[in-house]
């Protein structure tokens, strides 16, 4: 089980979804840029998604973030076509999911994707073990192989000893571990996680994020993770796409989004973020000045928070940023770090924005 199937890239191109009696007849309006409200009031159709184009690289975690009603859960359901798109393409391994017939779609879902759900969606009449084998059972794998894979993943998600428990006997966090084990046992290159941790307590949620990040280091799947929580998005996402009213308003790495929010809406989101955990040293480093030779070094990719603890441990004032080979790229001093972090704190708005449900 150690060598898992590596990820597959996902290309979403110009995806549109209109809900209503005649979606195809109204998609042109959406393409011409009619507003969501106008489409609803004048034509009685709801715009779900407009012109979504996201390229998700293989083996990375793509987070899709947005508040409720932004269309994020609709979007993830287009990847395995639990929802039919009105227009557009979803290319996975060169195949357009939108064009598959029933049989091909079933095979695709069985072997290329696995999904974890917000409400767990476990089978209540089956034990943990029986739930975990579900995907392999659907694939028609031999029973011994099903159980071997299931036991392996149950242990990996930390549920050893609970194989014969029923979902109702487990806490929410444990139930979602079963959901994760069920998805991983499928060994599909793509893992879809629809608000998988939103129903969990804050502490359990952070715990589960760690479980996912640790596993991802070895499984290298293409993970699509939906969340409404910015902290979760920044912690997990190699890349993040922010959705509002069915449109992508910004895409990029955590750092890009925190440092250069595309508009007021996103700026409001990131205001509360702890920049020290997101911004990396090379984003604020200065050229090495002659005469100064810092005795502390940090590799590129170190966050400001980590750099600060390095500095205070060494009781030093500045550190050198080095690349993987150890050659010096630049330097950062305590003052620069403080300035970069504190920019997030000022100016503080009079009233706390209620946009982000702040957790953890």
């Amino acid at each position, binding site marked *: 089980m150690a060598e898992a199937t590596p990820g597959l890239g996902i290309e979403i191109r110009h995806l549109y979804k209109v809900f209503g009696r005649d979606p195809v007849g109204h998609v042109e309006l959406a393409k011409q840029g009619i507003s969501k409200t106008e489409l609803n009031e004048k034509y009685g159709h709801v715009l779900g998604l407009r012109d979504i184009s996201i390229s998700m690289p293989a083996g990375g975690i793509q987070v899709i973030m947005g508040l409720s009603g932004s269309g994020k859960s609709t979007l993830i359901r287009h990847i395995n076509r639990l929802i039919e798109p009105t227009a557009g393409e979803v290319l996975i391994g060169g195949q357009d999911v939108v064009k598959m017939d029933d049989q091909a*779609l079933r095979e695709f*879902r069985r*072997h290329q994707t696995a999904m974890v759900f917000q409400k767990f*969606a476990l089978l209540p009449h089956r034990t943990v073990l029986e739930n975990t084998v579900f995907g392999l059972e*659907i694939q028609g794998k031999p029973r011994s192989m099903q159980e071997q894979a299931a036991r392996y993943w149950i242990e990996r998600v930390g549920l050893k000893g609970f194989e014969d428990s029923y979902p*109702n006997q487990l806490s929410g966090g444990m139930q979602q571990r079963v959901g994760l084990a069920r998805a991983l046992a499928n060994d599909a290159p793509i893992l879809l996680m629809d608000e998988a941790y939103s129903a969990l307590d804050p502490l359990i949620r952070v715990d589960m994020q760690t479980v996912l990040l640790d596993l991802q280091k070895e499984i290298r799947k293409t993970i699509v993770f939906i969340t409404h929580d910015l902290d979760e998005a920044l912690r997990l996402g190699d890349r993040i796409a922010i959705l509002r009213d069915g449109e992508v308003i910004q895409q990029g790495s955590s750092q890009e989004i925190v440092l250069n929010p595309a508009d007021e809406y996103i700026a409001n989101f990131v205001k509360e973020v702890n920049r020290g955990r997101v911004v990396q040293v090379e984003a604020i480093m200065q050229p090495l000045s002659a005469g100064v030779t810092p005795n502390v070094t940090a590799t590129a990719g170190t966050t400001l928070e980590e750099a600060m603890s390095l500095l205070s441990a060494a009781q030093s004032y500045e550190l050198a940023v080095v690349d993987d080979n150890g050659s010096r790229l630049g330097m950062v001093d305590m003052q620069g770090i403080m300035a970069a972090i504190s920019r997030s704190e000022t100016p503080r708005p009079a009233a706390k924005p209620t946009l982000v449900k702040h957790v953890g």
Partner: protein
Amino acid sequence: MANWLADFPHLDSELLRALKKTIDEGFRAFTRAYGDAIESFFDPLHFFLVHAERFMTETPWPIILGLVALVSWLASRNWKIVVSAVAILLAIGFLDMWEDTMKTISMIFVCTVLSILVGIPIGIAMARSNRMQKIVNPILDVMQTMPSFVYLIPVVMLLGIGKVPGLIAVVIYAIPPVIRLTNLGIRLVDKDVLEAADAFGASPWQRLTKVQMPLALPTIMAGINQTIMMALAMVVIASMIGVQGLGQPVLKAIANQYFTLGIFNGLAIVGIAIIFDRVSQAYGKRLQKHLEVVHG
């Protein structure tokens, strides 16, 4: 007062008589033409009925008693239910109603099996399509409200008097709950779980057998329990068209005003009803055991 106000304007009596006569004759002609064919179509049922009855009446009573105890135990895992089932049967045997009771039980057993075999697929079809539900529901309403004597008439005309027509009459009366509750049970299955099954690539058949049926099973069991109870309620009426068992002594008691005979046989029917009910309910409850242990 005008004549048409006092007397509801109705079809001319001559015409009405002619209408009834035509329909009756049409049906009679149909019976003459196809009666034999339809009768032979139901031959397997007859075979099944005869053998079930022979098994129940010809097996020595201690073995039957042991079997009942065993089945009650396997279904309920509750010794109180086992003891009461055995006690009821002992009392029935002691009052010399053993043979009639065995005939009734075999009849009820065959009726239930037939209702399940026919009812569950219809219920599944109803759950899969709203149109099907719209068509079947009114038919079930008619089956449940139409006085049973009325549909005894065509059944007897077609198949004569005997076990098979009795069986058909009982099944018509008793099958609606299985159908309705199968439909309901499947429709109540959590949408999230179904979506998960789809996301893992389940085929419609896998969806049905691995998700919908297991999750609907407790509801379906409640329907089967209702069906058994309704079948027992039909025992006396079925005895009017030649079904043997506890119904016939009751019929005799009505005709001759034998109070005690009626009461004894009536109580025996109640006794079997209690056994069937408790055992099938306990089984239904056991099916839901996994839902009861909630994380604290």
